[in-house]
């Protein structure tokens, strides 16, 4: 045993991109690997150690009964548990099944649905166990990830911004795509963290970092409607990578109910 803090990286239903962010922090990777003992990180190393873990990074959402049990065990083995990415913090894009008939979903993809063991919902890790810190993003920002790891090692609370993407556009000097071009943008209600890249690339924000603190969703969706966007499209825009986060879910359900009421 090295005596260093022990780090575990665990995967649930996900694309692998968030844990890859750690390997993509090329300049910091060897430094981080030096300050912790990587006790469990299947993608990076064949050296597999049992718990307990000082820090666990959890990627992915809960979609099977087996994973419901597995996350409980990891929680029991872990001192400080961090969820990384939209799947772990909100259920991810696969949470679209939550609004559908999951059996129909499965049988449309797989010829023999009997082989498929899956829950009807995709849910965030925090719906199942206590989470000590949530790091948002689809994918997460690697610099925020390094900040989280270093903060936890130093015994202080990680600091990641909760303001909206709009503020970062102003900082970058990016002209507002919604005001100038009428392009639908979720930036006013989405948490910063990506460095406001979409408006800089001439498109609207599509909500990768989930709801910002105290988002005014009704005001934004009213503006979308005023700009001529059909309700169905507004619902789809909210139901994407963070569609199952409470704020986005409540608003997309409200608009869906309005539409259903009219029909």
């Amino acid at each position, binding site marked *: 045993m090295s005596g260093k803090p022990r780090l575990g990286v665990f995967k649930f*239903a996900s694309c692998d991109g968030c*844990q890859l962010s750690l390997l993509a922090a*090329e300049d910091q990777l060897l430094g981080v690997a030096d300050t912790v003992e990587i006790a469990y990180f299947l993608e990076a*190393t*064949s050296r597999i150690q049992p718990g307990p873990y000082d820090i666990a990074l959890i990627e992915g959402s809960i979609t*099977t009964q087996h994973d419901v049990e597995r996350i409980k065990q990891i929680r029991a083995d872990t001192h400080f548990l961090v969820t990384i990415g939209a799947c772990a913090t909100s259920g991810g894009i696969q949470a679209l099944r939550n609004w559908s008939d999951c059996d129909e979903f*499965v049988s449309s*993809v797989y010829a023999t649905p009997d082989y498929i063991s899956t829950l009807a919902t995709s849910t965030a890790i925090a719906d199942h166990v206590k989470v000590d810190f949530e790091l948002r993003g*689809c994918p997460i920002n690697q610099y925020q990830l390094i900040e989280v790891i270093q903060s936890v090692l130093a015994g202080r609370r990680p600091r990641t911004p909760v303001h909206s993407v709009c503020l970062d556009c102003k900082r970058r000097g990016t002209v507002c795509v919604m005001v100038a071009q009428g392009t639908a943008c979720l930036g006013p209600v989405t948490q910063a963290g990506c460095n406001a890249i979409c408006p800089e*690339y001439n498109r609207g924000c599509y909500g990768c970092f989930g709801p910002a603190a105290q988002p005014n969703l009704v005001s934004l969706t009213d503006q979308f409607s005023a700009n001529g966007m059909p309700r169905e499209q507004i619902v789809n825009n909210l139901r994407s990578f963070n569609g199952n986060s409470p704020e986005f879910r409540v608003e997309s359900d409200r608009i869906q109910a309005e539409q259903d009421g009219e029909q």
Partner: protein
Amino acid sequence: MTDRVIKVTALTRVEGEGGLYIKLNGDTIENVRLEIYEPPRLFEALLRGRKLEDVPDVTARICGICPVAYQMSSVHSLEAALGVEINPEIRKLRRLLYCGEWIESHALHVYLLNAPDFLGFESGLEMAADFPAEVNRGLRMKKHGNQLLEILGGRAIHPVNVCVGGFFRSPRSEDLKKLLPDLEWCLNAAIETTKWVAGFDFPDFSCNYQLVSLANDKEYPMNEGYIATSDGESIDVIDYEKEFEESHVEHSTALHSLRTKTGNAYLTGPLARVSLNVNQLSPTARRLVDESSVSWPCFNPFQSIVARGLELVHAFEEAIQIIREYQPAKPSRVEYAYRSGSGCAVTEAPRGLLYHRYVVDADGKVVEAKIVPPTSQNQAQIEADLRKWIPHALSDDEAATARAFENLVRCYDPCISCSTHFLKVKIDRS
């Protein structure tokens, strides 16, 4: 005769999570399974009813290592459905974006996932203690590949700039040209990488593959061409579903892709690409082929690492050339009108052929989606190779035996997160 079971409960240094199960009865092989226990995410179902503009962003989330591949196959399929012709500048930028992805994916696999097997380490991070110059060289190549993706795509993982018809915005010439000194350093690093890995000690192991790759008479294949095989076939992409079928075989819980006519497995990926397109490699990569001890076509899966080295050289050399000649595309995206129809495309993901097909309606919504990733195409071949590898891998040492099998699996760079969403999955962690 006694039963012997070799199990790797959790494969490591692969993308996504799976296991390996091999059962022997004396000298008889009873079962060989590459087990996939990642939960399905049902992408083909959740795309239905969404606007076709959402498809490149949503399918990117199938894989965090090769999101560009999903974006490329999806936009080319949708453009085929809509009758959109992209301009040559957009075409070049898509190749440049793909170069970035091949670089980050191959550098990751060569240095952090695969090389440790040849040199006897548990991980690339551990290997860094004894091979600091090499590991830092690999990380620096990966970093500059990611920078290319960031400038062109907005970010390296799940880029935001790709759209049906082209790009939301053309990259600024000065931003791309700033990368040139680093990319030139990387070209040399890739040459060193290829020479380094070609000198590894390879097992004497050859498989009777049918190699399958996109091919193109003008260039090294990425985004367009026909499907070539090592048996001399030229298959039109629109005939993909006629020529390749997904079938359920008895010894596996997964859907395997097989050739429809013969029922045989086949191999796609860097080994197939280099073997079938060696004359289209960039001049420096071509020269390395002539100097190297590895001969092409190559049928030894362990030498896939040499193919990745050659493709690193090619990708850096082509990226440098595209950037030097770069003129911003005008417009950056081609306009289109909705119409009902269907379209398919194959592009070369870092791990091989990636097939997409979409049916869209007159309102621009997705009616049907079909996606066949490279790892599910390779799975039947990987299992066949594992059977063939048994006599080489077996020893009295259980851990060493399991490791010998795992080493072979890693050579294919399987992407289990990708394949899972399309394979039949049985949860079995017993």
